């Protein structure tokens, strides 16, 4: 039995399937859901296992993704943390970058640092920008400083010195001394967390890591012991933000690497699925209750970046976290997003969400605000008789009441208001999808749209129409796709190292040396993790490159020559190409490397996925009913509604149609053709001969 669990804000999803090692056969994928149980999230995980009737003793593989890190950060539930910096720089954490994104708000306040000033201490030391130690760290005040921090009730210490990304000597000296003087306290040095420059970003990352470090350790240990207590004999794996899984040891050492594990696994699962079904260029859309997340996969490659922030929006600079995270754009638009009119008479959808409680007005739990889900009900896209998997009878009176202010404010009917809300929500999501595609030089017509999450199927076809994407894929089990993705990932570690260097033949040996030392580190880290020594590490070589004189970089996968060395001439060519694609011009200038980036992967054996069973039943047998559905610009039609669970590979039909599953509704507007592939994924071919809008 292979299983993965994904802890979400409301539910903990469990996805599992049988695997018979002797026959090499896999059983169908099954799903269980339990309530999420903060603050003891591991309880929800165990509940979902029990609900599914699984015996941990029979599990051979267990992967786990959790929001425990991001929750501890956003709810400020980490431990009391101190910071030690280079003398003269303790206020960098509070100054941050000095920016004010809320431009015309003169009563602006920037986000408060995670460490108060009285817990930010300094030591006299200095490393230069060339990585030379100019002044070894003076440890003489440290013992007294630690006494002070102890008395203040500090539980974790972050250390961040200037240029430690080049030389960690001074930081390490402090770590060693603290381990000696105060072995119980959590200590993290910036050089262990990030090897990139920009002292504010690296310091903040280290601080946030330290802040959640003891919590993550406790959580992972308690999950391990609960699983072991019920007989699980393997080590569990933890999902990371870079799309790979990590051993528990690695996750405990660097917990911030799990900060965005949920979205990452969905995106990487999309890449895996795309690879399997021959769709290597994908626009990825994950629509949940509160937000929609978008990403782009080019030639099977998920982009991973270290320019990641939490709590950043149009008004707030947020907090940077320099850890590898799959590149996503997230907007406040999901099924529960609330529609409202501003004083100028403009209709908005989101970013406020009705959440799970009270939820959309139709839930009848006291929600008085109109949401996207309510609009889809009004338009007949969601089945009134099968709302929330048939568990809820929608309160349509409450829905009408909730829409009254919009109807009055804009002078429109209920239907028109609902269409407007869906259209604005779609426009918001279209803009987000544009940010990951057209804005970066990609033509959506070269891509397929893969949509999942609770609301993915509902909006996917309409969004593909907007962006002229010719094909939509809604994967089987789309509402628990992220958890499913964890069963498909490999062990992965990313190593970034800032080392500004001209890309030129005379530097070839420096490239080779730097990558070799990163590879050695990867090998040592995997050895230290207790990963099977025989496992082969697969390396990928990337670099963040720029024109000399520019600041921002683009990531390029480095080509190898026949001898297996980095081909620098080809690298430069590649950079020009990627750069021009993104920015529409190229320069003659010299090319400089800023960061080396090594991906070190160990493949986890994955049994083949089971195909969906074909019983030979007729298409007419899987029709649930026909109902009137409003397809907005496409008109109002009598649509055929199919039972998604009963559809079989090879079946196909044209819109207007709806595919209904207990937790997902796929809306297919007229003219487009849907089919079911061998695994049970829905594939919709769009027809653009008739202009949609």
């Amino acid at each position: 039995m292979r299983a993965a669990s994904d802890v979400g804000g409301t539910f903990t999803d469990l996805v599992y399937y049988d695997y018979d090692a002797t026959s090499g056969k896999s059983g169908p994928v099954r799903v269980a859901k339990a309530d999420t149980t903060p603050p003891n999230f591991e309880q929800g995980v165990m509940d979902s296992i029990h609900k599914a009737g699984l015996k941990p003793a029979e599990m051979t593989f267990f992967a786990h993704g959790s929001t425990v890190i991001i929750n501890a950060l956003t709810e400020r539930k980490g431990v009391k943390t101190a910071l030690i910096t280079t003398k003269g720089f303790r206020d960098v954490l509070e100054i941050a970058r000095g920016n004010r994104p809320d431009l015309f708000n003169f009563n602006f306040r920037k986000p408060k640092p995670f460490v108060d000033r009285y817990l930010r201490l300094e030591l006299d030391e200095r490393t230069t920008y060339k990585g030379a130690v100019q002044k070894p760290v003076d440890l003489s005040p440290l013992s007294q400083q630690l006494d002070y921090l102890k008395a203040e009730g500090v539980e974790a210490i972050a250390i961040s010195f200037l240029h430690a990304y080049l030389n960690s000597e001074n930081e390490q000296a402090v770590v060693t001394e603290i381990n000696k003087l105060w072995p119980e306290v959590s200590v993290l040095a910036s050089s262990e967390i990030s090897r990139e420059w920009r002292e504010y970003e690296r310091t903040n990352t280290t601080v946030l890591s330290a802040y959640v470090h003891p919590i993550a350790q406790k959580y992972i240990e308690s999950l391990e012991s609960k699983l072991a207590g019920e007989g699980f004999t393997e080590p569990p794996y933890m999902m990371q933000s870079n799309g790979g899984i990590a051993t528990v040891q690695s996750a405990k050492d660097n917990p911030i690497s799990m900060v965005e594990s949920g979205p990452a696994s969905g995106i990487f699962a999309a890449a895996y699925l795309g690879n399997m079904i021959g769709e290597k260029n994908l626009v990825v859309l994950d629509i949940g209750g509160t937000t929609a997340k978008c990403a782009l996969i080019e030639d099977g490659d998920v982009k991973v970046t270290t320019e990641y922030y939490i709590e950043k929006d149009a008004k707030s600079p947020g907090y940077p976290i320099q850890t590898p995270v799959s590149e996503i754009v997230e907007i406040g638009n999901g099924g529960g997003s609330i529609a409202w009119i501003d004083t100028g008479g403009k209709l908005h959808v989101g970013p406020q969400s009705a959440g799970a409680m009270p939820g959309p007005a139709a839930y009848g739990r006291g929600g008085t605000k109109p949401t996207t889900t309510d609009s889809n009900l009004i338009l007949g896209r969601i089945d009134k008789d099968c709302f929330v998997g048939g568990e809820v009878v929608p309160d349509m009176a409450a829905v009408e009441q909730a829409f009254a202010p919009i109807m009055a404010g804009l002078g429109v009917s209920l239907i028109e208001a609902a269409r407007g809300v869906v259209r604005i929500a779609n426009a918001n999501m279209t803009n987000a999808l544009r940010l990951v595609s057209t804005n970066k030089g990609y033509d959506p017509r070269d891509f397929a749209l893969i949509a999942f999450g609770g609301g993915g199927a509902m909006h996917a076809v309409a969004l593909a129409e907007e962006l002229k994407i010719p094909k939509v894929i809604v994967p089987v089990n789309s509402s628990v796709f992220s958890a499913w993705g964890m069963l498909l990932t490999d062990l992965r570690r990313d190593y970034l190292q800032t080392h500004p260097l001209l890309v030129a033949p005379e530097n070839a040996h420096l490239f080779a040396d730097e990558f070799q030392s990163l590879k050695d580190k990867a090998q040592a880290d995997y050895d230290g993790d207790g990963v099977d020594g025989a496992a082969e590490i697969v390396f990928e070589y990337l670099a963040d490159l720029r024109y000399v004189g520019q600041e921002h970089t683009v990531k390029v996968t480095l080509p190898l020559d026949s001898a297996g060395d980095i081909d620098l001439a080809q690298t430069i060519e590649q950079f020009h190409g990627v750069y021009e694609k993104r920015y529409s011009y190229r320069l003659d200038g010299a090319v400089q490397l800023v960061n080396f980036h090594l991906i070190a992967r160990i493949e986890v054996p994955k049994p083949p996925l089971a195909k969906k069973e074909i019983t030979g039943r007729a298409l007419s047998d899987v029709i649930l009913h026909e109902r009137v559905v409003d397809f907005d610009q496409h008109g109002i039609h009598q649509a055929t509604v199919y039972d998604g669970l009963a559809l079989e590979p090879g079946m196909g039909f044209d819109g207007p149609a709806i595919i209904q599953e207990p937790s997902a509704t796929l809306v297919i507007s007229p003219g487009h053709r849907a089919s079911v592939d061998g695994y049970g994924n829905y594939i919709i071919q769009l027809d653009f001969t008739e202009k949609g809008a």
Partner: protein
Amino acid sequence: MDIFTTEIIKDSLVALGDEMFNAMVRTSMSPIIYETTDFAVGATDAQGNLLAQGNGVTAFLATLDTAVQSALERFPNEGDIRPGDVIITNSPYLGGGTHLSDVVIILPVFHEDILVAFTVNKAHWTEVGGTEPGSVSTRATEIFQEGLHFKFLKLYDEGRINEALVGIIEANVRLPESTLGDMHAGVAAARVGARRILELIEKYDRPSVLHAMVELLNYGERMTEAELLKLPQGEYEAEGIVEDDGLGNGPFTVRVKVTIGDGKMIADYTGTDGQVAGPINCSYTGLVTGARCLFKAVTDSEIPANGGCFRALEIICPMGTIISAQSPAPVSLYYEPLIAAIDVMWKALAPVMPDRLPAGHQRSVGATFLSGNHPDTGELFVMGEPLVGGWGASEDKDGDSGQFCCANGETFNIPTELFENRYGVQVEQYAFHDADGGAGEYRGGKGVVLDYKITSDVAYLTYAASQTISRPWAMEGGQEGSNNYALILRKDGKVERHHMCTGIAVEKGEVVRLYTGTGGGYGDPKRRPKAQVLSDIKNGYITEKQAADFYFLT
């Protein structure tokens, strides 16, 4: 045309500002663009009404639309502007003008040979020639010393680049690669915007998009009007000073009378001192920008800025003042009087709008330039950056510490690790200082002290600040903030203080120490709870002596 489609086109027009902004940040060659984001991007309709503007700095708020308006005056006849043209201007005294370093790129957008819009960007180029490296001087007496002056020239003529103009730029600036890189980035960003407008027209058709433009402007006007009605109606006055023109003259007074009533706001700057001999003059475009910034801050700062938002704002000022300077007044430090113009309006209105406006802040860009040769390569560098300082306290909060001034916005300090790598100069501290100032029931935010230790044989410092003698103003019995100034710590132990200087030699091992002001306090310090004062001491935000002297802590 249904209302929701119009809404969606409007949103797409607003989103275009952000798209152009990202393109510009990513492609620029100059730290002043990619870190300081000393630029603005946006689009106007065919008449030059601002449709949307991308986040950069606040101080460019009136520079895009007025640039297009002046371009239309310069090229008045049909056929003067053709598809494929790109217009370039940096003329301070006309629309879009600030100082010569800020160059405007205007790209007319045609659909089927009909002019439908302009996409525009204005960015601070690191170098446009002139007497001083970095093209900013504190001692210029005429604009001719401040660099190349482009007055609405065609950079591209029907798609062909103007090689003669490019050649002139290349031969007249100190860092041609960087300057021409900035130029290309500007054109690329404008093209991104143009492409999006054409995509919208292809999707919806031209009349729908043009209709949405009109609606967008009307929406801005409606939203602003509603906000204006909420403000306390009446007349409010204030004045402030700009200390020095760089030539030793000054101080100069900036005055304003703000009238709110009849759904309008009038900012009357009559009574402000005349233009000055040194380069601390601001043109009328700069003044419009300043007044618009404050207007936006007190109406709704969240409404996307467009031309409609400013229909209810009237600005009065006779020509030839320090904030409405005429040719050939030198203008390289235009932003200091511009900020003073914002600040007096702010000071006039804060007492009646304490929920929107805090007490006075450091009120200076504190622009600091260092030039010299990199100790490793010997190559010339020109470093230019604004400084962060303390903001004022407000009726319910302490002020922010270490933030860029109100004329900046999405402006980023240069990380020390990048700074040292790029310039070789060693940064010795970047910290809050504890100069007196800002005490109050709510405390002003802390100013910063920043040390640069010179590591090459010699480097040259250019520095210009205001509020070097006057202090950030307080509210409701709070204490004023502290001053902006620069020190040079000489090898022989002497310490020099500077407020305005150009090209001062600083030798190896000497330190440039920059101080920025702490913001003004709000309310009587005695009203600050004792626990709070003790916490301030513990955090080092105030010293024990300050606690005793200003908070009467016993």
